[in-house]
C-alpha cells in the first residue's frame, strides 16, 4: 500500500519534470486511438487520472491484456473495444491516453 503510493508520487513528479522540460520521452508511441478498426494491441499504460484508470481496469482494461477495436460509432467516435470478454465504448480523447503495443496481424491471429 505504502510503496504503491510512493511509486505513484515518483511517477507523477517525473512526469511533471519531463513535461516541464518538454521532453517527449514519456509520450507513448502508440495509443489505442492509433489502432484501426479490426486491429488489436496489448494494453500497456494509462496517462490519465488514477480514478479513471482504475475504473477502466475494473472494466477489464488491465495492462498486458489484448484489446481489439471491434466497432466504430458514427463519425468514428466513440469506438467500441473488445477486451477481456466484454465490449466497452470509449471516446477518442480517452483512447488517446491509453498506450498500446500494436499486434501484427499474424501475431494477433496466433493468440
Amino acid at each position: 500500500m505504502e510503496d504503491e503510493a510512493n511509486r505513484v508520487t515518483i511517477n507523477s513528479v517525473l512526469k511533471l519534470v519531463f513535461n516541464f522540460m518538454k521532453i517527449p520521452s514519456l509520450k507513448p508511441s502508440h495509443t489505442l486511438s492509433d489502432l484501426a478498426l479490426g486491429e488489436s494491441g496489448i494494453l500497456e499504460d494509462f496517462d490519465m487520472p488514477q480514478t479513471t484508470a482504475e475504473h477502466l481496469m475494473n472494466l477489464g482494461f488491465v495492462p498486458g491484456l489484448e484489446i481489439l477495436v471491434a466497432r466504430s460509432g458514427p463519425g468514428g467516435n466513440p469506438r467500441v473495444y473488445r477486451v477481456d470478454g466484454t465490449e466497452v465504448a470509449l471516446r477518442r480523447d480517452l483512447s488517446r491516453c491509453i498506450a498500446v503495443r500494436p499486434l501484427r496481424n499474424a501475431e494477433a491471429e496466433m493468440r
Partner: protein
Amino acid sequence: MSLPVSIPRTVLSPKPTDGSPVYKSVAVVGPPNAGKTTLFNRLTGLRQKVGNFPGVTVEHHTGSFRLDSGEEVSLIDLPGVYSLNPKSEDEKVTIDVLNGEMPGAERPDAIILVLDSNNLNRHLVLAGRVIALGLPTLVLLNMADELHKQGGQVDVLPLARQLGTPVALVSAVTGEGLHAVANFLVATPQIPEPLELPIFGDPRHCREWAVRMGSQASYRRGATPEWTRRLDSIFLHRLWGGLIFVVVIVAVFQTIFSLGQPASDILQKLLDGFAVHLSNWLPAGLINSLVVNGVWKGAGSVLVFLPQILLLFLVIGILEDSGYLARAAVISDKVMAKVGLNGKSFIPLLSAYGCAVPAIMATRTIENKRDRIATILIAPFMTCSARLPVYTMVIAAFIPDRPVLGPVVGTRAVAMLSLYVLGFAMAVATAKALKSSVLRSRDVAFVMELPPYRWPRWKSLGLRLMDRANAFIFRAGTVILAVSIVLWGLTYLPMHNGQPPQIADSAISKIGHFIEPAILPLGFNWRIGVGLLSSFAAREVIIATMGTLHGVDPVSHAMALQDALKSDLSPAGAIALLVFFAFAMQCMSTMAVVQRETNSWKWPILQFLYMTTVAYVAAFVAYRVTLLYWN
C-alpha cells in the same frame, strides 16, 4: 501482494440448524450488470421498499426474505460497485454500510455477493475485497443459465476452498441453485480459512489472482453469444445504426404521445367527474372546498402524470434490459458531446418535450452524478406539453395569422417554432455553462460497457414500474399535494358566509397586487401576476385563472377570453409572457421530483431561482425590444 487475512472463527463455526435464521440482516453486494437487482427481486418479491440514506443521492432497496420456517431475514440491496475504493458516491455508500458507518443503517450480519459467472476473471477481484471485510459471505455466481448455454463451466467446491466462503452457481432468472441462499441463512457451513486473498495491490496482480482462482475451479468462460455480435453489426452499423436509432426514438415518442397523453386526458376527465360528485355529496362550505378544490385537485394533479411516467419507464425499461439503451448512448454521444454531456442524456432530454417530470426520473440511467445533475437542470427548458395550451392561447390572441413561407407556414407557426428553439437554445447554453464550470466532470465523461443483448423479463420490468410509481406518488406526490393545498388556501380563503371570496378579494390576488410593481416592467398587470402565481400548480392553470378573473369560461368561450386578455396585455407584454413561460420553472411537480431525485432541496431551489431570473431578464428584454418595433 497478497496479505493473510484473519476471519473471525466464530462466524465460521457451525450453528444449530433448527430452521431459524443465523443472520438478521444481510447485504446484497455486487458489480453493476451482474444481475444483483434481479436476484434481490427474486428473493424479496413485493416485500421491498426504497429509501435514501441521509445526505446522499444514492438509493437503496430493503426487503425481506422469507425462510421455510416462516421467519424473515431483512435484505438490503446496495449500489452496484466494481471495487471497494471510496471513489464514487455509490462505492462510498456500499463501504459505509458494510462497515456499519452509515447513519441510519445497522451494520449487516452477513453479505451475499453476486458475481456474473460469465465474467469471473474481472468479478472475482471484488470477491477478494469483500471477503476480506471479515463478514460471513455467500458468493453467488449468477447467470449460470447463460454460462452453460454458451459452453462455459466452473466448479464451485475448489473455489469455495480457496475463498473460504460458501460458493454457489445460480441463476436469478430461472431460480436455479437459489436454495443456497436459504441454506446459508440458517446455518453457516464449516469452511476452513481462505488460502489467500488479495487485499490491496495493483490491478495486474489482482487479476492474476482472480485468473488463478478461476483456473483452480476449472473455470471456462462461455463464448460471447453470436447473435449479440450480429445484432451489433446492425445496430452499431455506420449507416443503418443511425437510421435504426431514429426509427426507435420516433417509435418511442409516438407511443408515449399517442397513448400517454390521451390516457392522461381520460384520467383527468374521470377525476374531474368524481370531483363533481364529491362536491355534491359533501355539504357546502369550507370542508367541501378544501376536499374538492384542495386535496382532490392536488391528488389529481399527481395522478395525471402516472400514465406518462409508466409508459416512459416501460419503454426505457425494455430498451435498457434488452441492451439497446447502451447502443443508443453510443450513437447519440457525438451530438451530446457538443454541449458537454454524453449519450446517456439523450433520451431523458428528448422525453422532457413531453413532460419534465418523467424525464427527470429517467436520468437515473446516467451513472455520472455531475452529468445527471446537469441533465436534470436543463430538462425543464425543453418545451413540455403543459406550455402548449398557454402558447396557443396567447399566440392566437395577439399574433395575426399572416403567411410567411407559402400558405402553410404562417406567423403563428413561426412564433410557436421560435419558442421551441428558444427553450432548446437556453438548455444548450446552460449545459455548456454548467459543464465548463461547477459541474465539469472530473471523471471521464463517457466509458460505456455494452452488455450482451437479452430478452427483457416482464417480472423485473413490472417491479421497476411499481417502484417508480410508488416513488413518484408517495415521495414527490406529498410535496405536490401540500403545495396544492397552500394554493387552494390562497385562492379560496378567507371565506365569507361559507362562500369563497371573489378571486379579486382572495389572498392570491392580494399577492398579485403586491408583486405588480415587480412585473410591471415586463408589461404584466396584477391579473397576469395572479395567473403566474397560480400557474405554479401547473403551467396551463393560468388559462383557467384568467378565465375566472374575467368571468369567462375558457373552454366554451375561448375567443372571449382572448379578447379579455387584450385588456391585460399589450402585444409587447404578450411576447414577454411567452418568453417568460419558455424559461420559467413554473411547475411544482418538477420541483418536487428534482428534490426527490437529488435528495436535497438545494438543487430544486437553485434551479427555480436560476430559471426565474433567466425568465425575468429575458421577458424584460423581449418587452423592451418589442416595444421599439411593434406597438
